[in-house]
């Protein structure tokens, strides 16, 4: 029994340790405006922080209005000081619900994508 438990513990410890030497895909950590939030004023930018550094050339944020029209300024860029932060500018937004669609490639080339909504209060 003791040996059985030691084997199992060893496998778990080794499995936990190996990922420390590699990197993985970038997932959304948090955003501004927050995912699903209702804000009182139009934001000037949509910011998304990811769990990994993202590759500027292959990472974008797009913002769509409720009619499906892209309304961002198409200037997605990675923050110079924080490689995990992706930003896109938006014009003054009318009250309504907006959909944010993001596609990123982490610096080790893993691709991920996702979307969320936020609302500008009427």
């Amino acid at each position: 029994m003791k040996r059985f438990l030691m084997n199992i513990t060893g496998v778990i410890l080794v499995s936990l340790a190996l990922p420390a030497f590699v990197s993985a895909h970038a997932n959304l950590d948090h955003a501004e405006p927050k995912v699903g939030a209702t804000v009182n004023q139009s934001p000037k930018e949509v910011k998304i922080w990811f769990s990994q550094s993202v590759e500027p050339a292959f990472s974008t944020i797009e913002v769509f209005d409720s009619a499906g029209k892209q309304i961002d300024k198409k200037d997605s860029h990675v923050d110079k000081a924080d490689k995990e932060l992706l930003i896109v500018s938006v014009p003054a937004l009318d009250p309504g619900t907006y959909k944010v669609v993001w596609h990123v490639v982490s610096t080790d080339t893993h691709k991920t994508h996702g979307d969320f909504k936020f609302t500008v209060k009427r």
Partner: protein
Amino acid sequence: MKITRFALRCAALEAILFSGSRALAHGYVGDRFFPPTISTDDPFAVDELALPTVSVVKNAGGDDGPGNWEWDSGFEFDKEIFPHFSIGISDTYIYQHFRHQPAAQGWDNLTLTAKYELWHNEEHEAIIAIGLEGDIGGTGSRGVGRASFSTLSPKLYFGKGFPEFGDPLWPLQPFAVTGEIGQSFPTSAADLNALEWGFAVEYSLPYLQQHVKDIGLPKPVANMIPLVEFSMETTENRGLGGLTTGTVNPGILWETDYFQLGVEANIPINRASGSHVGATIQMWIFIDDLFPKIFGHPIFGERS
């Protein structure tokens, strides 16, 4: 703690597979990540590695023998061969501790699985797959009572998220269901035919935080998926038709970028299913992310 040779062999296997660049993500349909579950199989024909799955339960004594504490440790490995078609292998090492007699231990019969993803719908976060599972008789240890005959089980797998719940019902959007239903055909008349069925109801806090509404959950809670699994079998013949046995398994999964750790209680649904609550802990290693040169894509062809 001393790490034994068995653990080091597993480490060597993982180290050999380690190398560098990009793979497709595992278990996604649209925005939904369907986690591999513990007691029931998920509907994805992708590269997966469960190592280890450890369970413990106290078995009551009966006609089959004296009561014992049973510790099981197993693995499952699946590899996508063609786009949306995978084959898998799994086995479990069984250790039974008896009170007044020597312990019994040995491997369970080997299980081979073939699975094909028939249909996806990204918008509705839905997937259907079919498969064939074979329990290969004679490959396990007779010391732990493994069968000498094989059992074949064609299966249907499914998964469904619920993005259809609109904004007013946003708290329900993180719910998802996965499940399987199969029919077992033993190659010996000594065993029963049975309907094998099970499903998992899960509530994805990562989905809530990343796609629905950031409610400010702190980590590691924000990366957890509470779930309840129902793993059942209904016998069909040999005088035992209609007897359903199984367990209800409430638990929690914790997601990281590299692995998923899960723990469940295993509660028997009736006396025929067992007399004590067991527990299972399982680690899924996301080999498609860790070893993308080897995993995360079919051997032949490209995933669409």
